[in-house]
């Protein structure tokens, strides 16, 4: 039977077949990770040479999960990451959207120059500023319940504050704000609304997609933080999940426990993404940003 390009059903079948194959390639690592988390080390390592690695067969148990919780304070690490990530995402959405609002709608001297500088920060890798930033935060003052203290090391704030504002998030908001109908803003101003009222009564209610995009991108950056907490946190109490992964790499690596830990720390990310998936895709399509 020859291939008929006009056969809609066949074309649809081929298209979905290709899409399913591509989806499988992306899903395989997750399937491997979750299946391996239930297998003892010997079986896990033996299965890597066959398709058994992707199916829950053999000696299946929750022992690796119990082992992971014995080896490391998994709950504490997840809680720390969720706390740091959540606080940073919320503060980032507020601060960056305000900055972007200023760049998009207000007229002030030097605005374009400042915006160019903000955009220029996108090309500076974090690794190049990590050490100067470390020296800075290790000497900064803080007034808290215990009075004036010097140095931010071993705190939550040192993991949150330096990451609130960033060029990419501001750029995303600016691009999105510029796409909003100018008439709405003008109408608001003509009706006597202050710029602050325009921000939170008109602009922000229309910014759901970009808020979701910025939140997801910031969430991924923060949840996957490794280098920064590694150098500014020396106490287990404040360690996030990615630094905690190191607990599982001893001379004899417990691979099953590694997979169990990875499964545990991946679940919050998947839930967060699935929750905001539609808005994320809509915003990516509207801002033209590609990951």
């Amino acid at each position, binding site marked *: 039977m020859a291939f008929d390009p006009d056969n809609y059903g066949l074309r649809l079948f081929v298209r979905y077949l290709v899409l399913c194959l591509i989806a499988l390639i992306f899903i395989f690592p997750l399937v491997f990770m979750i299946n391996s988390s239930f297998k003892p*080390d*010997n079986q896990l*390592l*033996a299965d*890597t040479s066959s398709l058994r690695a992707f199916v829950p067969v053999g000696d299946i148990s929750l022992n690796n999960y119990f082992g992971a919780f*014995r*080896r*490391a304070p998994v709950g504490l690490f997840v809680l720390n990451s969720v706390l740091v990530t959540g606080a940073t995402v919320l503060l980032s959405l507020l601060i960056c959207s305000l900055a972007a609002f200023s760049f998009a709608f207000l007229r002030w001297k030097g605005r374009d120059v400042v915006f160019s500088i903000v955009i220029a920060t996108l090309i500076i890798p974090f690794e190049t500023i990590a*050490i100067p930033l*470390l*020296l800075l935060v*290790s000497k900064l003052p803080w007034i808290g319940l215990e009075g004036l203290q010097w*140095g931010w*090391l071993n705190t939550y704030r040192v993991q949150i504050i330096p990451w609130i504002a960033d060029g990419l998030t501001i750029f995303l908001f600016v691009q999105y704000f510029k796409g909003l109908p100018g008439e709405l803003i003008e109408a608001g101003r003509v009706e006597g609304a202050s710029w602050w009222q325009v921000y939170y009564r008109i602009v922000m209610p229309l910014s759901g997609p970009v808020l979701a995009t910025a939140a997801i991108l910031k969430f991924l950056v923060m949840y996957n933080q490794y280098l920064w907490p*590694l*150098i*500014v946190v*020396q*106490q*287990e109490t404040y360690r996030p999940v990615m*630094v*905690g*992964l*190191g*607990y*599982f*790499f*001893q*001379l*004899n*690596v417990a*691979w099953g426990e590694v997979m169990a830990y990875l499964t545990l720390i991946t679940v919050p990310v998947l839930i967060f993404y699935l929750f905001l998936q539609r808005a994320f895709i809509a915003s990516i399509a509207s801002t033209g940003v590609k990951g």
Partner: protein
Amino acid sequence: MNLTKHLAGVMIASACLCVPALAQTKLTMWYHGAGNEVESRILNQIISDFNTSQSDWTVSIESFPEKSYNDSVAAAALAGNLPDILDVDGPIMPNWAWAGYLQPLPIDESEFADFLPGTKGVWDGKLYSVGLWDAAVALFARQSTLDELGLRTPTVDKPWSSEEFMAALDAAKASGKYEFALDLGMNDQAEWYSYAFSPFLQSFGGDIVDRSTYRTAEGALNGEAAQAFGKWWQSLFTGGYAPGTSEDPADQQTGFINGKFAFQWNGNWRAVETMKAVDDVVFLPAPDFGAGNKIGAGSWQFGVSAKSKYPEGAAEFIKFAAQDKYLAAFSDGIGLIPPTPSAAQMTKNYKDGGPLAMFFDLSKAQALVRPVTPGYVVQAKVFTKALADIANGADVADTLDAAVDEIDADIESNGGYGHQ
């Protein structure tokens, strides 16, 4: 009135009871073993015993993941946030001493006279650190394999020569029973290469750097002996004796046990697990390639941070932890070599006739610490890259010359690392 007197009495009694606790000065300690339940349990016991054994000091520990520990220490040193007691990997110690992270131990070296050489961190003539265990590498084999292939069982006094070793690999390869004759653990390109493979180079008569001056690698890493080593090293892979750098990471844990390899070059930290799985496993000494048989030495050790205001307290703790009963507890717990003969006799594996006593003898007879220089940190990385490149087919002479140039340039740019 009675109530008032009663309360006053309780307060006075409480104050008296609190005096010893208040008098204790707090010492902070960092350790690389986060996630290692056995190590943590033993170390916490030592700390608890120390804190209750005297009234001057109290030690509190903070554990770090091993893979990122050195980076955490370097960052803390920059920020001026180091603890009193630092855990340091033996070959890294000179670098930390030179960089100003450590101060010499205020303990006479004679107090550790019976410790294995690899457990004492000496640089620039001063003792900086002491280890509670050592590690050793050996050639894992099955007695049945040796018998089937008609091979002599080598001993510490009479190890295999280069010819005997290659003949053993040839025999294993020719038997057709194994996927490869030898597992070297080639996937692990961290400290393993310099720890496990530089002793081969030293047995050929070469070295990573010229130890007479520590100012150059010229001649040591690219001389005739090093060239011969490089060609032999490359032949292991071109000859199909061992898998190359893309070796399966699981091989070091399961390859020998599952019969994929006839021989395995591995550390004593894998010995206990291997003994459980392989009834007739034997641990053979390193072959002698002409300049004596060598293995690496030096594991994690304790030192005192340069910023510590209480070096005498930190030294007290290190001396306390170095008691035989704790050395034996660590050995029984994690399978590594106790540093003293008396502690070895208290262990189940390393006492005379014990299943791993061989490793204690190996450490005494063959151990050679890695180059004792602050530049080792860079030299180890250069050496690792050179060996990986040669294994992947790079020209031996060119690769070793390039490695020498890189090491010499680093020494030069660091003003010789303090070596005159």
